[in-house]
Every structure is written in C-alpha cells, then in structure tokens.
C-alpha cells in the first residue's frame, strides 16, 4: 500500500463507520452500529501507531501531497491534501487512541440511551474531522477541519436536545467559537493576500522570513508588523477553539454533553486544536515577539484564573472542565515561550490523563445514578475500586507528581517560562507556578470529596437542586438505601488503558520529543531570539535525574502543599472552607459567578445585538424606509392619480396628445445625443 492510500485509509475509515451508523443505524441496530464504528476507528488507530512508530525509528519520510482539487481561482489551486510529519503522526495516535477508548467506553455509558446509534455516528464523524484537521497541508483544509469539529461539538453538546441547558450551551459554544473563527478567517485572508498568494503551509512558511519586517496599514497611517497582525488574528481562532481567555466561556457549559464527548472533544482532542495550530505555524510565530507576548498573556490568565474557578465547583464534571481550561492555559503559555514541542508534549500527556479523569468522572456518575454533585458523594473508594485507582493515578499525573507523565510536561513548561526573555514571561511564570498549587488543591479537593470521607448520599437532602444551571433535569441520584457499584468492563477497561500512558508516557517521551530530533524540521525555533529550549537542553540529564531533582523544587513543594491543604480542608476540618466562604463572601461570589464574564457577554453582546437588530428593523426598515418612503410614495401616487384621473378622458385625441409628447421627449433625447457628439 502506498503512503497516500494509507493516509486516506486512516482518515476515511472513521467516516465510513460514521456514515453507516448514522444513515443505516436504524436498520442495522445498536450492536452493529458500535461494531462498525469501533472497527473504523480501530483501523485508524492501528495504522496511526504504525505511522508514529515509523517516525520514531526514523524510517518515515514527510509526506506532503494533494488529494484532489477543491477550487482554482486566479491561477491558484486549492487542494485537499495531507501533510504527515512527526507532529501529525503524534496527533494521529493521540486522537485515534483516545477516540477508540471513548468508543468502547460509550457502549457502557450510553447503553440505555435511545440515541445510541446517532451518538456513535457523531463521535466517529468527529474523529474523521479531527484527523482531517491535523493531517491538512494547507490553511483551507485546516479551517474545514476546524469548523467540522466545531459542528460535531455543537451536535454533541446538544445531544440531549430536550434539555434547555444543553441547547443553550451548544448554541453558546458554536457562537463563541465563531467569534474566534472570525479572527481566524481574517488571518487566513492576510496569509493569502501577503504571503505569495498561496495557502499551502510549505509555500507560506517559505515566504515568511522575507516578510519579517514588512508592515501593513490596517488603520490608515499606522504601520503594524504584517506577521504580528497575521499571527494575532490566527491566534484569535485558537482562543476560541482552545478556550483561552476571554473566549473560554463556552467550555464549562459544554459539560452539558454526555461525558464520553467531554473526554474526547472537550478535553483530549478538539480543544487542543488551537495549540496544534500555533505549533504548526511556529515558522510564523517565531517572527513576531508581539504575537508571542499576546499568546503568553492569554495563556497565563487562563492558566491561573480558570484554576481558581475549579475550586468553587461542586459538579464533578465542571471541576474537570475548569482544570482543562487551566491546563490549556499552560500549553498556551508554552507556545508563547516558543516551546512548541513542550506545548505539544503537554497536549499529549494531558490528552491521556484528562480523558482518564473525565471517563472516571463518568464512571462515578454512572455509579451515582447520574448525580454529578460532589456534595452527595464520598467514600466511593470501597464501591468502585478501579475507578478510584485510575482517578488517583490521573490526579497524580495532573498535579505533576514526579515520574508521572504530567510532571514531565508541566515542569518543562514552568522551566521554559522561567528562562524566557519576553516581557510577558514574568507574569506568566507567576501564573504557572501559582497554578501548581491551585491545580493540586482543586484536584485533590475533588478526589477527597468523591472517594473518601463520609458516604453523603445517605444523608442527601432534596435541596441540592438549588445551584443554578449546574443542575440537570435528569438527576435522580442514589437513594439512602442504594449502594453505588463498579461500572461494567467496557467502562473500566478504557480507564485502565488510559491510566497506563498517563503514568508512563512522559518518562519515555520527554527525551526524544523535547531534546531529541523528533520535531526537527517541523517545529522551528529561532534559538538566538528565544533560547529557552536550548537552555533547558543543557540542564537536562535524563528523565530519572529530572524526577529526582524535582523533589527539592518549588513546583513539587507547591503541589504537595495543595494536596495537604485539600486533605486538611475537606477531610480534617471542613469548617475551615465554610468559614472562608463566609468571611470572604465577596471573593466567593465573584468566583461562583465566573468573574461575571457570562453575564457581561449575555447582557452586552447577545442583548445588545438584539436591541440593535430591533432598532434597525423598527426604525430603519419599518419607520424610515417603509413608513416614510414606500408608503409615502404610495400616498403620493394616490394623490397624483386623483389628478391624473382627470386626464383619462376617454377621448382618443387626448391620448394621442400624450403619445406625441412622449415621442417628442424621446426624439429630443436623440437630438441631444447628436448635438453632444
């Protein structure tokens, strides 16, 4: 099989599964639907592993070729085409592996849902879209994939379309993403207009260095660097998709979707598309320190401030969601520090442990009979041992416990920010280092509340429905006499499979990914201007040394402090958080209202647009155009016709006169023409 067919097979086999399950699911039934989609994704996953292996062992060559011509304009050809290099290969494996696990998990999670086939069709369609996104060799197909994953995300957040909160959340997600796409599309426009009239990555990257000092006048009279403008516009797209402040507001609400897609789309893969995109565009971003600073600031704010919000959440999925936001902020900070390989490394480790945490949360939710409120949980360790163990491993990976995968990627981010020379690096360093404590605190607050302590569902009061839209109408939860029990193997098997890379992958991957030649020629860093990775390389003496060394480092101490504080607050002295909540109620209110960003957007943008639309409609269309001009004309015509009616005498000579006047008019026009000549 030649490489092109291989890559086509990787991309298309999930699509085939999706089409079969989507169009014929009603005929072939549930079992066949999940078999065919799992088979499709399984083929992709196996072949992706083969591709990655070839890249790891240095046997593979970069593949860059068109598949078919989508459009030609002005002598330029747009093709749908594939670029498969080490970066793509890594994403292929992450996407297909997590997707495969989520497919298997879904058999258990959605078994009672009437939309079973539809769900499998959607997640396979998502896998296809995401593969097209990461395999693209040009901006236009990137945008295709970008929007397609957005579409599937929209469909899946609103999967339970009867629930008002779900259909509010999916519309919100789509529109906020569209705000990002607005910038992204203009960025693509800038690329097409100024980078040699091509949208192929290779052409654009080749043209970029010569444009490093070119300026454009976006505002007349003001010269801006072309690359800064372009990169910032493209980054606005990443802010939407990867939920960076201030376009992060859609991600927490996306938890309205079924848990498997929270794991697959809103944690492991789609939300990292923005990170992937910026890494892919590293030859452009390297040429603009302005853009890198913007990236870093957005990432820092997201990393720290979204972490704070994770502390006050009571819905188990929302804690993980805010954790995802915060971790996406870490990745973005790494991008800003020109450590693209580190960002991608964190994308990979995060995909495994965050998918694990989400799926474990889903397992807990099954165990709790669809109660997501952590205040009703507690002591689940006894009843759900596999879920408990895998959650613990995932949490340890997330907070950066030495030797776990999250440790290697996150510590590398902290270190590279520390040595970065960009103006924003000071703030960014504070954000990521403070974020370590926050992460440890909210992660283990969740862990202790769910798996340890009293079994609170026994004493559950019915008033837990009072916490705003965190609430779900399908909550029923456990009764006082019920016992939670471990989920079936289709649920726990993916947990175990994800736990393995969550623990191990960092240890083995750090050296080849960050300090080896894996990303050579794919990610480009200007080592003179941004020497961070070079400095890290000098200090790196192997994964073991890095792990051992870290026991005396600040991040470890902060993470430990976070765990201990969480233990003390929620296991030992629960009156303390209650007292803090009471005494710092202003802070608590701000956090519980998510810094009032949702209210701001809703009241200013959503309501503002509607008010403006109403104004244009009522005043512009109805009052001025219709009222004054159209109906005014109608009245005028009416008035005139009253007069003109008198001309309609019925006598042939008066009509003849009118005709003659008309002919004279036309003739004079003609004469005027001749004279004018």
């Amino acid at each position: 099989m030649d490489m092109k067919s291989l890559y086509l097979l990787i991309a298309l086999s999930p699509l085939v599964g999706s089409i079969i399950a989507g169009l014929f699911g009603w005929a072939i039934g549930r079992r066949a639907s999940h078999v065919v989609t799992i088979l499709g994704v399984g083929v992709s996953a196996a072949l992706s592993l083969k591709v990655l292996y070839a890249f790891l062992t240095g046997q593979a060559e970069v593949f860059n070729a068109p598949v078919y011509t989508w459009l030609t304009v002005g002598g330029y050809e747009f093709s749908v085409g594939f670029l498969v290099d080490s970066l793509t290969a890594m994403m292929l494996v992450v996407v297909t592996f997590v997707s495969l696990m989520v497919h298997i998990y879904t058999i258990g999670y959605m078994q009672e849902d009437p939309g079973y086939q539809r769900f499998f069709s959607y997640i396979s369609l998502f896998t296809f879209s995401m593969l097209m996104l990461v395999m693209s060799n040009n901006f236009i197909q990137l945008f295709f994939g970008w929007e397609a994953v957005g579409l599937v995300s929209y469909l899946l957040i609103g999967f339970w379309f009867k629930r008002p909160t779900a259909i509010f959340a999916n519309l919100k997600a789509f529109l906020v993403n569209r705000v990002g796409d607005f910038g992204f599309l203009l960025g693509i426009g800038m690329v097409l207009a100024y980078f040699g009239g091509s949208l192929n990555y290779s052409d654009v990257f080749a043209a970029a260095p010569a444009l490093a000092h070119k300026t454009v006048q976006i505002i007349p009279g003001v010269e801006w660097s072309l690359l800064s403008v372009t990169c910032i516009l493209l980054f606005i797209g990443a802010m939407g998709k990867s939920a960076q402040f201030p376009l992060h507001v859609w991600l927490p609400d996306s938890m309205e979707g079924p848990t498997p897609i929270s794991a697959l789309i809103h944690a492991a893969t789609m939300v990292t598309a923005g990170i992937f995109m910026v890494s892919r565009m590293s030859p452009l971003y390297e040429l603009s320190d302005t853009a890198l600073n913007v990236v870093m600031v957005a990432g820092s704010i997201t990393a720290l401030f979204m972490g704070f919000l994770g502390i006050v959440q009571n819905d188990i999925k929302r804690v993980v969601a805010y954790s995802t936001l915060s971790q996406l902020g870490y990745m973005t900070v790494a991008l800003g520090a020109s450590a693209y390989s580190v960002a991608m490394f964190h994308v990979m480790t995060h995909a495994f442990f965050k998918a694990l945490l989400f799926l474990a949360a889903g397992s807990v939710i099954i165990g709790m009979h669809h109660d997501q409120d952590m205040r009703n949980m507690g002591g689940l360790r006894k009843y759900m041992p596999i879920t408990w163990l895998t959650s613990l491993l995932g949490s340890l990976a997330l907070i950066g416990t030495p030797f776990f995968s999250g440790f290697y990627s996150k510590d590398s981010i902290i270190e590279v920010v520390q040595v970065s020379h960009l103006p924003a690096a000071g703030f960014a360093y504070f954000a990521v280092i403070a974020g370590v404590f926050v992460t440890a605190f909210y992660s283990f607050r969740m862990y202790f509340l769910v798996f340890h302590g009293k079994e609170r569902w026994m004493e559950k009061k019915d008033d837990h429905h009072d916490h705003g839209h965190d609430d779900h109408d399908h909550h029923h939860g456990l009764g006082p006499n019920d016992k939670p029990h471990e989920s079936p193997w289709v649920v726990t098997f993916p947990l175990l499979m994800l736990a393995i890379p969550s623990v191990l992958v960092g240890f083995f991957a750090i050296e080849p990914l960050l300090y080896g030649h894996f990303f050579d020629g794919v990610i480009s860093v200007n080592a003179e201007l941004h020497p961070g990775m070079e400095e890290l390389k000098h200090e790196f003496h192997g994964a073991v040394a890095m792990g051992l060394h870290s026991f005396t480092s600040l991040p470890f101490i902060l993470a430990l402090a976070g765990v201990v504080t969480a233990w003390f607050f929620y296991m030992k002295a629960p009156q303390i958080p209650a007292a803090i909540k009471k005494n710092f109620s202003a802070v608590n209110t701000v956090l519980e209202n998510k810094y009032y960003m949702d209210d701001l957007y809703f009241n200013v943008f959503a309501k503002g647009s509607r008010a403006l639309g109403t104004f244009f409609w009522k005043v512009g269309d109805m009052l001025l155009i219709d009222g004054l001009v159209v109906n005014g004309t109608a009245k005028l015509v009416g008035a005139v016709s009253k007069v003109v009616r008198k001309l309609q005498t019925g006598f042939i000579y008066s009509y003849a006169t009118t005709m003659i006047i008309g002919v004279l008019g036309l003739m004079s026009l003609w004469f005027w023409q001749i004279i004018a000549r």
Partner: protein
Amino acid sequence: MFTNQLSLVIWTPIVAGLLVLATGGDQRATLARWIAVAGALAGFLLSVPLYCGFDNLNGGMQFAENLPWIDSFGIRYSLGVDGISMLFVILNSFTTLMVVLAGWEVIQKRVAQYMAAFLIMSGLINGAFAALDAILFYVFFEGMLIPMYLIIGVWGGPRRVYASIKFFLYTLLGSLLMLVALIYLYFQAGKTFDIQAFQAIAKIPLHVQILLFIAFFLSFAVKVPMWPVHTWLPDAHVEAPTGGSMVLAAITLKIGAYGFLRFALPILPDAARELSTIMVVLSLVAVVYIGLVALVQSDMKKLVAYSSISHMGFVTLGLFMFTGSHLNQWAVEGALVQMVSHGFVSAGMFFCIGVMYDRVHSRNIADYGGVANKMPIFAAFMMLFAMANSGLPATSGFAGEFMVIMGAVQVNFWYAALAATTLIFGAAYTLWMYKRVIFGEVANSHVEEMSDVNKREFLVLAVLALAVLGMGLYPQAFVAKMHLAVNDLIAHVAQTKL
C-alpha cells in the same frame, strides 16, 4: 445535443405550462401535476447538455442562436450563454423541478394554474439569462414578474395585496428607467440592441455613465435586493406560497445580480469604478444591518428572507471589489458561487419552513419547539441547511462567502472584517431559530401531532441536500466553468470609456 438547445430550454417549460393550463379545472388536478412534473423534468434534462457540452476553454457565448425579430428596430432573437449564465439556466431549471414537487399535494386549489405559472415563469427566467439582445432580455425580465405576481396574489397569504403592490411600486420605477437607458445605448451602439455591442461601445462620458448606472441600479438593486430597497422582499416571502418563496429566493434575486454583471459593470466600467465605494458600503450595510434585523424576527419566513438579503449582500460586495481598475477575481467568482449556493440553500430553507407550515399552519417561531422529537429525519435535513446558511465549510454556503472575504482582504481589510461578521451573525440568527423550533421538549399539541417527512418531501430534501454538499465539497465543478467568462468580465471592466 440539439442545435437550438437554448430555445428548447426556454420554450419547453412554457409549452408544458400551456398544456397544463389546458387540463382546466381541479377535477383533473392529478393529470395537471403529472404533466407539470414531466415538463419540469424535461426542462431540467434539456438544460444538462448546456453543462456537459460546455467548452471550458472557449470564453465567448456558446449555444448561440440569432434570428431577426423586429427588424425595423434591430431587435433580434439572439440567445447564448457563457460560463456564468449557463449555470443559472441550469439552476433555474433544477429549482423549477423542486418547486413542482414541493407543491404536489400541498396545493389543492387551482392546481393547473399554479403549476403552469411556475413552468411559464421558468421558461421566461431561462430566457432572461440566455438573452443577448437587450429588448429580448427586457421582455423576459419583465414578463417573468407576471407569473410571480399571480403566484403571490392568488395562492398567497392574507396580506398578499399589500405585498404585491409594494413589489410593484418598487419594480416599476427601476424598469422604466432601465428601458430609457437601453434606448440610449441603442443609439450609441449604432442602432442595435445587442448586449455585446453595448459592451463594445468605446466612449461614454462619465456623467452619462453615472446616469445610466443609476438607471440600471434602480432596476437591478431592487431585484437583488440591496439595502435600502429591500423591504418588499420579506413581505413578498411571507405572503408567497412555499414554491413562490423558493423561486423568489433561489432565482429571482439572482437576476438582479446578473443584471449588474451583464449590463452595469461591462457597459459602464468607469461609473462602476466611480460608484464602487457606494456599492460596497450598501452591500456591507446589507450584511451587517440586515444580519442583525434577521436576529430579531419572530416569523421564520421573514427571518430567512432577511437572511437572503444579507447573503445577497455578499454577492454585490464581491461584484464591486476593485483594486485599481481591476475587479478582484476572487471576489467576483465568490459572488457567483454565492449566487448558485444561495439558490440551493435558500430553496432548502424555505422548503423546510413549508414542510412545517403544512403541518402546523404557522410560521411563528413561538408556535414551535421540540420538532426533532416528532420529525427526526426532517430535523437532520434542516440542520444541514441551517449549517449551510451559517456558512459551514463543506457545504456550498461556505465557498462563496470564503472567496469574497479572501478577495476583500486583498482590497481593504475592513471590508473583509465587516463582511466576516456574517460568521457570527449568520450562525446566530439561523441556529437560534433552529434551537427554538427544532430542539427542546415538544412545545404544544400541534407539534405533538406532527409526522415526519413523506417520500415526496424526503426526495426534495435529499436532492437539495446533495446539491448543497456536492457544491461544498467540490465547488470546482462550478468554478471551472466560469473562469473564462469572469476573465472576460474583468477585462471589460478594466477598460475605460472616457
């Protein structure tokens, strides 16, 4: 296939329409329907060779026919299509077939007359797109309005009289001025009404060009419709039956834009350049202002009507995007792609609304909710059209908007930025409507009684859906045909006649 293919495409539906009329009253409605569908299908099949037999490498008019008509005034029966008009002839014939199917059992009163009106209108519209003689164009252009008046006036809603009068008022002024302009050009071109001769006129002073441009503008801008002469469209749509709305949105609006690129731009290049900023501003107002107006509509048809105006803003935006004296090729081809795409998407949207209206007899968004529970197949189709209306890539709705925006960035960043707001507003009004109508719990007893699409509805939806997807995945099939015609247009417009 035939030497006079264009005449066949024009007259076959008209003859079929007359045959349908001959079936008489409603006692033979079934016969009328079958003749109508046969005529529409024949019209469509006859238009297909225009595509297959089209020579991509020939920039001139193809399938030309040229016979004397009114010799004393040099008026000729002159037909021909280039890569632009050919697409619209096919789009029109295709839409007619959809419309005949759409009205199948929905229309119960005066079936023969209803079907005949659409068939005759289809022939006349084909004539307008294929005419190369200005008077022939004018006759078809005005003639096609008569069936449309009847369709709205006879099968329309309660305020149909107001809607027709409004439409009439708007159209009247422009048409007469255009006739004056054509007569002026007749003398300038050496006593011929040949459109290509008009385009070849070497000298027209700027002030005359501007006057003529205004005459054409008043006629064509109303049809497009451009802001601020757009207010007839929402009323016409609301009153028109489903089929009327489909043709109105899919085809009639396109004739306005076609008029600009066949007359105003190539004949009056200096005026077009001179006034291009105004045209761009009006187009951007249409995109942004009308997008916001669409957001607050409570009537589904009005919402989609406003959405049409906003999408047509992209067309006029793309047609007047100048860099120096040159039109931007991206923008022009984008405008054309947008025109074809909007034909599929708006027909789909209006048909979807029609399907719901047939069941619940309301166009109010508030009367619906949770339709997906009762009509899952329908909901899936409507999702596709809604996404296409929001400009999602891989649907036809994306390609045109994308190309226009790409062209606009090259001309002026702010044009592009304002145009690109449609990504947000377009999605907002379409999907917000979709959410309120389709998603949620079953809202009331009327929705509870809704049944999913029948086979005929499924067929129409599926064909339109395939068109939307096909054009989104492979727009090259359309764009490849139009390259030379667009180059030709750009070359004409780049000249000066001063």
